């Protein structure tokens, strides 16, 4: 690659910055105009609403634009499921959410917190916040990936999405605090029934997908795919829908090109942001965090702590007995034994390091993640890249076994506990239902 001309001559600088900003505003979904950026530097109030909106869109859990995603088999619903609850949010609610989200991500400037929530001010601060987010991670790519036009039939292969909690509880009117426990039982039963339905519908969907894929074998121009997906077949069946899809695709292409352009030019943007930062009045005071009772976060933490504690105790018990037994056996062995001992230690150390990598930061690469496009291919024909369903099935089965064991263990624990509680009372006999 040839040397890029990085010396920015003044004449060029005049053009480079607007170009960069334009690229950014074109790339950002729902991006404000380039003019807004410029106004924000001078903290003009008219630039504020657009920036509030943009940050809200960026920071809220799922952008309300789900026109992109065709429902796919087995995918979890958008975890923070209710865009309708969020998007007609008033500007005040938007502002509050933005502040809160930025704060919990560790935004370092206090000025943000002090902005009024009516959305009328603060464009410079918001510009800084946006740049902060952009600098920290691949924000743009993530946003674009979220609204990506999905052309294939996709199925996620991991359950990361599923594990996420269902998101902001919609404001519920608790009729009264006292609810019969049988209502709980009813809800549980309803849930189980719902899952059963889900599985059945899922099966049917897969069967239909299989049919569509096999009936259109050989149609796709891309040989590695080989057949049409439902989206593509729909596009053929319904020309109007096809045109819309094409339009969306083209606008996404335009955004992608703008993003690439932005990548090329962003250096001058960061230099400019330095000047914006300098233009701000210095922040004087020590930050004082408003005390808040952490609710869910701490709850999660406590749960995990308890589990780890329990696990450690179990391990300790097992290890003690085994180690004692081992020492008893091995006590009289000679020095020749030491070498093999060390070899074992080394092997175990390596295994455990590999295990640790599975959960450490950035270690998730070994596992397949995210949605995958379904491609039907008769066994063995496609030697190309791609995950094989058989492997995923194997992994899922072992995970299933593990989870079943965990659940059984929990249930056993409950049973014991209940038996203990009831059994302590004189005069009662605790008869378990058959099969338990």
């Amino acid at each position, binding site marked *: 690659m040839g040397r890029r001309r990085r010396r920015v001559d003044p004449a060029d600088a005049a053009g480079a910055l607007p170009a960069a900003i334009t690229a950014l505003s074109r790339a950002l979904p729902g991006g404000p105009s380039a003019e807004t950026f410029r106004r924000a530097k001078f903290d003009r109030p008219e630039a504020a609403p657009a920036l509030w909106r943009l940050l809200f869109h960026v920071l809220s*859990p799922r952008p309300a634009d789900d026109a992109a995603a065709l429902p796919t088999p087995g995918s979890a619903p958008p975890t*923070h499921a209710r865009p309708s609850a969020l998007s007609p949010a008033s500007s005040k609610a938007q502002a509050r959410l933005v502040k809160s989200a930025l704060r*919990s991500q*560790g935004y*370092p400037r206090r000025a943000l917190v002090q902005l009024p929530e009516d959305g009328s001010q603060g464009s410079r601060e918001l510009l800084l916040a946006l*740049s*902060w987010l952009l600098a920290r991670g691949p924000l743009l790519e993530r946003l*674009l990936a979220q609204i990506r036009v999905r052309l294939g039939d996709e199925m996620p*292969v991991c359950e990361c*999405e599923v594990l996420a909690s*269902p*998101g902001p509880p919609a404001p519920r009117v608790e*009729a009264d605090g006292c*609810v019969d426990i049988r209502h709980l039982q*009813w809800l549980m*039963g309803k*849930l*189980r029934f719902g*899952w*059963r339905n889900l*599985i059945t*519908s*899922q*099966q049917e*969907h897969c069967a*239909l997908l*299989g*049919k569509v894929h096999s009936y*259109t*074998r050989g149609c796709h*121009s891309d040989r590695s795919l080989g057949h049409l997906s439902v989206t593509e*077949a729909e596009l*053929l069946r319904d*020309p109007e829908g*096809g045109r819309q899809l094409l339009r969306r695709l083209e606008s996404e292409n335009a955004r992608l090109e703008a*993003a690439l352009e932005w990548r090329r030019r962003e*250096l001058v943007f*960061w230099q400019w942001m*330095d000047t914006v930062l300098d233009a701000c009045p*210095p922040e004087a005071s020590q930050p004082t965090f408003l005390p808040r009772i*952490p609710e*869910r*976060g701490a709850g999660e933490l406590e749960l*995990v*702590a308890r589990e*780890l504690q329990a*696990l*450690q105790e179990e391990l300790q018990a097992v*290890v003690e007995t085994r*180690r004692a037994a*081992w020492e008893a056996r091995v006590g009289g062995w000679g020095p020749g034994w030491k070498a093999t001992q060390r070899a074992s230690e080394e092997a175990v150390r390596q295994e455990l390091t590999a295990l640790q990598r599975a959960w450490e930061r950035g270690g998730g690469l070994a596992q397949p*993640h*995210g949605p995958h496009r379904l491609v039907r291919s008769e066994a063995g024909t496609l030697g190309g890249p*791609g995950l094989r*369903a058989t492997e995923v*099935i194997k992994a899922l089965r072992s995970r299933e076994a593990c989870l079943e064991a965990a*659940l059984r263990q*929990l249930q056993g624990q409950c049973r014991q506990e209940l038996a203990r509680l009831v059994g302590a009372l004189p005069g009662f006999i605790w*008869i378990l*239902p058959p099969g338990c």
Partner: protein
Amino acid sequence: EGAGPSGGGGGAANCEQLLPLSCCPPAARAGKARAAEGAGAGGGAPRGRRGVDRRCVPPRLLAELRDALDACAERQRQLERSLRVSRRLLRVWYADPGHPPSSLRPHSEPRAGRPRPLPSCRSSVTRLSLQAPRLGSAPNPGGPWGLLGPPGRAAAALCLRREPAETPALEPTPGPDTNEEARPPARTPSPQDLKELELLTQALEKAVRVRKGLSKAGGRDEAPSRKSRSIVSPATTASVPPRASGQAGRRASETKPPRGVRQTTVPAKGLPELRLLSVGDQTCKARGAQAAKPEPGLRDQQMAPSAAPQAPEAFTLKQKGILLRLPMAFRKAASQNSRLWAQLSSTETGDSMDATTTAKTQFLRKMQSGWPSSRLCAAEVEAEVGRLRKACSLLRQRMGEELTADPVDWMQEYHCLLTLEGLQAIAGQCLHRLQELRAAVMEHQLAPWPEGRLPSAPSSCGGGADSIWSPQLLLYSSTQELQTLASLRLRVAMLDEQIHLEKVLMAELLPLVSTQEPLGPPWLALCRAVHSLLCEGDLKAARVTLKLF
């Protein structure tokens, strides 16, 4: 509270403490309760509730269950949407009558008896135009199948055409089109072509006869459809040679052999088929300079020479799906899209990138200045807690494996012992880290996302770190496999949720049981209910036999 244990009302409730704890399905009991209570909360519906005390079930439990129900309902809704789309796709497609494609040419008729010169393909969009098999009516001589009669007639039931590039859509158009557009710039079938066609049509007739004999209770519409398909394939094969194109010298076989291969795998092709195809192929190969090579990806052009009355064009994916082609505009956009994504996700290295990274870091530092950076923000704490939770489950899984393993010699035993000790050490480290986090949260009053999870979660999964933002492929080989995969995924998700709920239930309900002092019937009923909730999770109930639809 109700009167004494034998107080009237709810038979079920009052019987509970006397009978052994039989497995009365919770739903049934709860069903009665529901009937009695209406919406389940509040009110003093006397019947059926006398025996059971109204406990204040902690709102957290209710919230969790309701969230789970909502999530389940949402998934169901999405699935149903997809189902509707897919079902519609598999039914008959009808051309949109009110929507004449812009480039629809008026057709000139004569379809009977004239060998159609096969058009050249030039434009960018393929349009599919079909003759519907006349269901339920005897194939008339003029019908698509009837064209087999007189030799020399292009044995085609399918007509695939091109339109100039404006409309990116592909639609089944009413009426076979033909003619002006179809007429190749300069070509009439040579005698050789006709001869070949004749051979082919004869073979086709034979095939049809064979097929007729073979076709069983597939129904009238099955037979014609199979016939149509069988007609189509060799016919399309046949179409290649006579096709004119401006580009000589390019082999036509590129279209056909893959086609041929495909045709044979399509269900129920008999031997005559294969022979036809090979004949067709040979014809193609023989075609040398004459070979008409359409633009890549373009398919057959044929007229439907039949004199069949204009049937409403019905198209089903099952019969004719293989003939679909994506419009060129779409293909271009899609390939550009994947190219752009590939570019975007590749990380360039080079001076420019380094300078940018430096500039960014500097900017971040400046932003941070003046504040003691508490390195831990709530989002990071949450992410780390999530990682530790995953660690716990992986450690436990590994422990389970080691405990159930059967060492055959002392080496393995030692290995096992060391592993367990290692696991213990790691668990200890995780615990320690967790305590650090807890302290940090307390100290800094780090408030988590007040309304639930932050979108930091997606970053942990979505593509798993840097690179790929466009979807990778998942290859499956049969419907059964796909169904297994999908149901396993759901099952794992279910189990996850069940475990989570179990923990929550344990945390909230067991204390209730132990703190209830009046050990009368209400308490027993509570015990029983708690037991059913906690211990009778039907693991097997959700297992569904795979049924092929």
